[in-house]
């Protein structure tokens, strides 16, 4: 198996084997259950579907699909050989080893409608000397030539709340007993965010 679903528990710092301080994110990774299998003949691709975390109630279509295995957060992971897996199988955090490089996908914290200073790291204008253009967008182009605003120009708008993938994340420790995975650096989203961890 090459991936698992996890919940972000928070961040802290630890001393590594050299004695240096490193920043880590703590994740509750798995246990996940295989809830569905997609194969080449029937679906055109090979993948398995994992479910994570229990839920109290399911509606009729959900319980039909999950066979009353009350789970939420269902994510599909591509695999090469589907024959190795069967529905109901448990996937645990021990698929990862300390030192391994992984990537983590998830939804970032929503920032709302953000200006260009925050969203695109534009410089701000002077705060004093009669200036009123503190955090304004500024010019968005020339005049009659070209007579339009170029496409793709950095403008204010909704920021965050999008799915991103953080790559080259190093696994620091794997705790199979508590289903806890510790990785170096940051992971998208706030505490409690559901993220997907994939081997890279």
């Amino acid at each position: 198996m090459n991936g698992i679903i996890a919940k972000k528990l928070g961040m802290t710092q630890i001393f590594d084997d050299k004695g240096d301080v490193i920043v880590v994110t703590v994740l509750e990774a798995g246990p996940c259950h295989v809830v569905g299998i997609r194969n080449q003949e029937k679906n055109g691709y090979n993948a398995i579907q994992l479910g994570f975390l229990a839920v109290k109630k399911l509606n009729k279509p959900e319980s039909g699909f999950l066979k009353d295995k009350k789970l939420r957060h269902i994510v599909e992971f591509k695999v090469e050989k589907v024959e190795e897996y069967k529905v109901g199988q448990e996937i645990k955090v021990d698929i990862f080893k300390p030192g391994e490089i992984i990537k983590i996908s998830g939804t970032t914290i929503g920032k709302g409608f953000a200006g260009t200073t925050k969203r695109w790291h534009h410089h701000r204008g002077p705060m004093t000397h009669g200036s009123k253009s503190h955090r304004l967008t500024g010019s968005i182009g020339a005049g009659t030539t070209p007579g339009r605003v170029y496409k793709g120009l950095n403008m204010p708008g909704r920021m965050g709340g999008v799915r991103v993938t953080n790559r080259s994340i190093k696994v620091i420790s794997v705790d199979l007993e508590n289903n806890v995975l510790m990785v170096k650096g940051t992971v998208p989203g706030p505490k409690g965010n559901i993220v997907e961890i994939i081997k890279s």
Partner: protein
Amino acid sequence: MSIIEEIEKKQINEKVALFNVGDTVKVLSKIVEGNKERLQAFEGIVIKRKGGSNRATFTVRKLVQGIGVERIFPLHSPKIDQIQIMKKGRARRAKLYYLRNKIGSAATKVKEEIKKV
């Protein structure tokens, strides 16, 4: 206890010396040079203690040829071999930033603790 608190607790060095702001300490830190490991001493006044749990740090200030030098150490760092308390000081502030503005002998002066009888 939450999982994160447990992880932080494992990082804490229980044997760490007890000292306060105003004390004069000698910090022996491990330095790796090639294959050899030696101890480097840094002696001065503790002017700040900051943070809790495994994140706690302290700042030591000393004068080198009349120029102030400050060094921040993580309290529970495995790189710290030993913290020796040379002198107990009685500080009336939590942070002794005022020592930065003092010149000469006044910059190293913190009242010694008077033992209660």
